[in-house]
């Protein structure tokens, strides 16, 4: 290396430090909220959908005049499906005085990872799409969740309805043992069984993210004569399990929660999907005005089926807007206080009320299935 090159490299170091990070400075007259989503990595399909919902929300708000007369900006950062990134990015948002709230992270693994850090911040954080059952005391004072929580009681209720509608008696359960969310949902399913349903859990199989051949596990399920397979994992494996199971002769129902609402699953597996049932807080065919407006804006922008995670992210931004308006100023502490007293906020994924912290106190599930045209319709 010659002298000039060496000096150039060394001289650029302070410049690199000075321009560290990709956090843009806000313009005057803007309100800035942080966004955390996995846009790359193994969970990216959910993050990409959430990003769409965020964008619809921001556009809707800004077209309507912004919040408190100011333009809303969401500084969305990619957690790269890495919990350590989520923690690091959250800390950076907390260190930026102009960030008034954070939407995200998405999913259970990152939500669990940020719990200790969140407890040190006075910054409203709206976790999106994390389903793990948690007691209110487990939440730090500034963490809220925008998600339909799959509690054992809720799953029991859903299973009973599905069993009656689809004549199901024997269930097999697939769990991704490398995924917190899947493990949490599977635990809730087992606990739901323990509450007493008309169903019997006759097979339980686990796999690891990245597995490609599920023939042995499916074979065990088939030998157990399951009528339904409950899939608690994510899109990457679901799109492999479903066609492999159909190829091996499984004609029963695929069941699941919000992770099964990813439209990409149905797009990729096509005719292998039905019968396919999931529970979700979002029904794109609802005639509620907020849902009608959201779906219209979404279809105009993307012309695809609306995913639940897009709806969650949309509601999360709208909840922040609601809190900002009630707070009266883009002040972090005031927004946090206002968020904790949210009452009867009409979101597209249901009506939201928060009691200080934690989960929505008024959840409402829909049970949907895949219709003939590949769209999600209410289960018959």
């Amino acid at each position, binding site marked *: 290396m010659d*002298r000039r090159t060496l000096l150039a490299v060394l001289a650029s170091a302070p410049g690199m430090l000075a321009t560290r990070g*990709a956090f843009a400075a806000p313009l005057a007259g803007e309100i800035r909220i942080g966004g955390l989503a996995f846009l790359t990595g193994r969970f990216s399909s959910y993050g990409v959908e959430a990003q769409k919902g965020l964008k619809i929300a921001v556009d809707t708000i800004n077209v309507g005049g912004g919040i408190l007369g100011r333009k809303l900006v969401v500084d969305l950062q990619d957690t790269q499906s890495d*919990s350590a990134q989520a923690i690091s990015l959250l800390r950076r948002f907390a260190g930026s005085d102009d960030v008034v709230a954070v939407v995200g992270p998405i999913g259970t*693994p990152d939500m669990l990872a940020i719990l200790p850090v969140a407890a*040190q911040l006075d910054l409203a954080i709206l976790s999106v799409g994390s389903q793990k059952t948690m007691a209110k005391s487990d939440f730090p004072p500034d963490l809220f969740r925008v998600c339909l929580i799959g509690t054992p009681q809720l799953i029991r209720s859903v299973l009973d309805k599905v069993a009656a509608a689809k004549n199901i008696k024997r269930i097999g359960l697939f769990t991704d043992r490398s995924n917190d969310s899947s493990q949490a949902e599977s635990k809730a399913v087992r606990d739901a069984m323990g509450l007493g349903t008309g169903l019997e859990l006759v097979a339980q199989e686990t796999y690891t993210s990245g597995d490609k051949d599920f023939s042995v596990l499916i074979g065990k399920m088939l030998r157990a004569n399951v009528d339904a397979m409950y899939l608690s994992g994510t899109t990457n494996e679901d799109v492999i399990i479903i066609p492999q199971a159909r190829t091996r002769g499984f004609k029963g129902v695929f069941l699941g929660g919000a992770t099964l609402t990813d439209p990409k699953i149905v797009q990729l597996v096509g005719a292998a999907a039905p019968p396919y049932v999931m529970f979700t807080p979002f029904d794109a065919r609802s005639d509620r005005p907020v849902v009608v407006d959201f779906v219209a804006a979404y279809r105009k922008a993307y012309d695809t089926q609306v995913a639940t995670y897009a709806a969650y992210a949309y509601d999360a931004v709208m909840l922040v807007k609601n809190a900002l308006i009630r707070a009266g100023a883009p002040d972090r502490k005031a927004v946090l206080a206002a968020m904790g007293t949210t009452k009867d906020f009409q979101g597209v994924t249901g009506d939201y009320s928060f009691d200080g912290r934690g989960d929505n106190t008024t959840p409402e599930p829909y049970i949907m299935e895949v219709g003939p045209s590949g769209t999600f319709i209410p289960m018959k």
Partner: protein
Amino acid sequence: MDILASVLVPVLIDAIAVLGLYVISASGRLSAGHAVFFGIGGYASGLVSTRLGLPPVVSLIAGIVLAAVVAVVFSLISDRLSHWFFAVATLAFLTMMISLVSGLDALGGATGLYGIPLAVGLKATVVALVLAIGVVIVFDRSRIGRAVRAIRDSELAAQSLAINPTAVRAFAFALGAGFAGLAGGLWSHSIGLIKPADMSIERSLLYLIFLYIGGADLWVGALFGTFLLSLLPELLRFSGAYRLVMFGGLLTVVMILHPAGLITRLELDRLKALIRPAAAARAREVG
């Protein structure tokens, strides 16, 4: 933790791990699974903190010691493996440990160990890095450090000087693993969790890239490579999944143009000449 701290803490932790790799490379060995000791240190620290409730300093020491002990055992078992075969063995060991840890519920399984006390910030990592640099400087100037390099340069000649190559290699490997164990412990205490994914092949590969782009000949090169290549992604956060592609390309270019890395003894001498040309001229006259 402010923005600067949140950017620098991971970089400083990586720098400590890469210093460990520098020590190992001084013995002529290539460790392609260095992240395994990062993970061992992280898990050991995490377990000592969460299950025994001991202070972070104790848990960090536990991480260092366990990583070093495992390294000694591994080194003795694989002592007869030459350069590339040893590298493959370290990679195999890493893969084995990832599978083992992922399957153990006591360690949190594939989802990892949560609830580790958040006890490490910028000050602690700076102190740790300074101490690590101090240890490396002492190592470089010490008799054992010279023995390690003698083994690398010519094992036969070293043996003729009554240097035990097996023991010296094991020492270097343990010392390097200890650095990685410290880095893992600091990491687990800085983010509050440790996962099998933290001891990944990707992390091992990145550490090798940091070392060999920076220059494996000097500890300054190891630090330079780490800082340069860690801070670049902050500017290029959009690159995301293509970061390794970028690094791979950079490594290829550096290996072609500067096989010894960006900072070598020759470059350091040139830098000294830039800063103190008179002194360099006098040194040349005397030399």
